[in-house]
């Protein structure tokens, strides 16, 4: 579909096939749209009638893992089990259960794996504090290395002080640079 050669025969053909292409794809997009609208219409009823409770439910579900499609939360997932469990949470909220009770309810059935924020206990200590441990270890290693290097340099008589000769040389270099930049 060449649109770049104006006023030529080639352009006429190119334009016609371009419009054919457009129509065909528009029709396909329309069909797809209709199909998708039908699909979402099927899922539509799954919404509670109380907006505040619904928000509460979604907030809670966002912290819980869907076991049918792992790595999605119960709030995100459209797996049948997630739909059921959202309904279950909705009903438990309606019964006046606290968030803690609802979490315990799900934990008792599916295990700690449902919690995106697992409880701090024996087998999750490494999970919770491992990263901090690595950070502290890294900082410690850095500190020790730097201390040792400093001790070695001091032992070799190298100091952080500039000798007079070096200081003069550095000053000359700086002056040179300033002189150049003021010219340009």
């Amino acid at each position: 579909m060449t649109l770049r050669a104006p006023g030529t025969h080639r352009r006429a053909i190119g334009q016609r096939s371009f419009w054919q292409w457009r129509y065909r794809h528009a029709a396909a997009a329309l069909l797809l749209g209709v199909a998708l609208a039908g699909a979402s219409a099927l899922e539509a009823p799954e919404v509670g009638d109380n907006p505040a409770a619904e928000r509460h439910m979604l907030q809670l579900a966002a912290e819980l893992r869907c076991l049918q499609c792992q790595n999605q939360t119960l709030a995100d997932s459209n797996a049948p089990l997630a739909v059921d469990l959202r309904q279950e949470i909705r009903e438990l909220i309606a019964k006046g259960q606290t968030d803690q009770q609802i979490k315990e309810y799900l934990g008792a059935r599916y295990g700690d794996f449902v919690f995106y924020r697992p409880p701090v206990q024996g087998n999750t200590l490494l999970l919770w504090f491992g990263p901090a441990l690595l950070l502290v270890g890294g900082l410690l290693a850095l500190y020790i290395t730097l201390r040792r290097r400093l001790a070695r340099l001091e032992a070799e008589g190298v100091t952080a002080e500039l000798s007079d000769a070096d200081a003069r040389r550095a000053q000359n270099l700086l002056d040179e640079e300033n002189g150049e930049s003021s010219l340009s």
Partner: protein
Amino acid sequence: MAQSRKSLTVFLPLAVFLVLAWFLYKGLYLDPREVPSPLIDKPAPDFRLESLSTPGRIVDRKEMLGKVWLLNTWASWCVACREEHPVLVEFSRTASIPIVGLNYKDTRVDGMRWLAQFGNPYVDSAFDQAGRVGIDYGVYAVPETFLIDKQGVIRFKQIGPVTPELLQNTLVPLIQRLNG
């Protein structure tokens, strides 16, 4: 002395690497689908459901007290159940223990047709159309199978199809021990 300390430090990164590599290597063999069930060694949740075949007849967990039995979750829409089913049918011919089905989120028509087509290894199937009992049992990947002892305590859970190897190596010895 200083020399030996230095040579030890040289190996420190290697040690750190080996520790990390060990964790990653172990991670290769962990199956995130096999979530340890918190229900092991806990009482099997109660249920009273209608029988799949006979509306009105109640399948009650309490009636199974005093027996070692298997609870097998299945559904006609479940592909892995087809793979598992012949194993259960075969096991039910020789087994000394009853297998109760939990027909999970299915319809009576589809469920009955499925049993007629592939055989029925179950003493009865509880009809859990809404999947509520499934939630109580922490079911998330049909088929799942629970081995329940005489006191009504869950002793073993299989996530995914029961295989002949699992029966032979794990379930049968466990059943013999629980029955013994």
